[in-house]
């Protein structure tokens, strides 16, 4: 229990960020028209690809004889990049079509 309390006060900054971000996330997309649901989902999907940064850090810190970290880290970098790059490109392709119809 004390651990948890210590953890909360040691990370109060992070906890504030989490709470504020929850509200920002809800506020930001509050009035999205239904035609944009799918592109928005896809765009958000690309944004959570930010997890690749964690994979990069693992990879970069791994000692050269730690094969588990190297292999899993490499795999994580590849998968995370797929998420980021594929996500943004697919979203762009969806939105490209929205733009065309206005012109």
């Amino acid at each position, binding site marked *: 229990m004390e*651990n*948890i309390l210590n953890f909360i006060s040691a*990370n109060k900054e*992070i906890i504030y960020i989490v709470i504020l*971000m*929850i509200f*920002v*996330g*809800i506020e*930001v*997309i509050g*009035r*999205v*028209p239904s*035609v944009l*649901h*799918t592109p*928005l*989902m896809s*765009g*958000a*999907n*690309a*944004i*959570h*690809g*930010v*997890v*690749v*940064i*964690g*994979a*990069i*850090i693992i*990879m*970069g*810190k791994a000692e*050269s004889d730690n094969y*588990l*970290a*190297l292999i899993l*880290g490499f*795999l994580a970098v*590849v*998968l*995370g*990049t797929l*998420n*980021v790059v594929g*996500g*943004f*490109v*697919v*979203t*762009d392709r969806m*939105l*490209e079509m929205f733009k*065309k*119809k*206005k012109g």
Partner: protein
Amino acid sequence: MGSHLLTICYLIGSITFIIGLKMLSNPASARKGNLLAAFGMGIAILGTIFLYTSETGEHLGNYHWIFGGLLLGGVVGTLAAKKVKMTAMPEMVSMFNGMGGACAALISVVEFNHLSKEIEEGIVNGGDVQPTVLIIVLGLIIGSVSFAGSMIAWGKLNGKVKDLSFTGQNILNLLVLAITLAAGAYLVYDPTQHLLLYAILGLSLIYGVFFVMPIGGADMPVVISLLNSFTGVAAACGGFLYDNKVMLTGGILVGAAGTLLTILMCKAMNRSLANVLIGSFGGNKSGGPAGDKDQGHYKEISLSDAAMVMSYANKVMIVPGYGLAVAQAQHVCHELEKILEEKGVEVKYAIHPVAGRMPGHMNVLLAEADVPYEKLLEMEQANDEFKNCDVVLILGANDVVNPAAKNDATSPIYGMPILEVEFAKTVIVNKRSMKPGYAGIENDLFFQPKTSMLFGDAKKVLQDICAEVKSV
């Protein structure tokens, strides 16, 4: 200096994510918003690679591995995203989402191994790292569920995985979840039990499969959106772990926005999230409410008659559905629209918000064929217009025009707003067969006296109609 620059990179990343997401929710700025977020992501990633320093001040190593991974993932991701057909985009999103979840799960595995080595060597005390283990376990469970669930959703959307439900399934699912969480809690309590981590990994994957398995294919967009927000939370766990603000903000932002988006999607179908997750809509529950009712007979219409009726109409409303997308008939549909307009027929499209397999699917599809924006009517507008229409041409849509949603309180889609096509003078329905739509229920519309059926693949049928209309 480097670490200050990195802080600024992360700040730029976080801000572009928020503004990008905001811009994505408005049609005029959506594309720029996506590019802005991508730009911020690029800055954050490059910043991490070149500026990140550990507590001991060391830079990252293994650059060849990192760049190799980035290159491989980048090339494969771009190619996959560029090559994918419009109809397959939702499953592509699901696939990418799964990759993100897997990435988060792998991070947890590696970090836990690192940690348990430190515990063994006595560098850290097992009791002190409990909060860290908690975060690792959470990231592992959420990431794995998201990965396995997304893969199943992907399989369902491209028809490789069939719906599977049996009695007691919900109880079994809850049981698996409870065991997973209990195992997770025990590992947090006693971090030295490092083999337990793999048990949790396995259980979470199983739960992910079980979670999505019984949910009908028609509900996959909602499920993908939910899993999307899961992956967001898993990414945020990574942010906690590394005290990395951009991962944290990005992850939580997507977690919150994704959850709201999921709820909004459910609302567009006039259903609750709980109903989607444990309800049977779209599942293979046999014996629909209309099953025992005498349906009467439907009548067919020939191609030339259909062409004739439309050529002499004043106003034609086209209702596109999944059938149009599957047949890739959007171009020939636009062609028909142009030919009819040349003959002085007014042609509009009625777009149901959930027609097709994803919200906005039809807009995207018709935009691809250069159908002008003004011709697409939203549901409310279209419903006002149907009474002035001579002909409604339904192309592969079914559940979104099913009057049971209004009339039959026992129907699983009761309450969903529909396109009220029956107010038009004539309804022509193009379908491949009399098979029920995705919700698995009969459609009374097809048996009404106003309605005539025109069986066949949408593209083929439309091509033939175009030819017929030209010769009228």
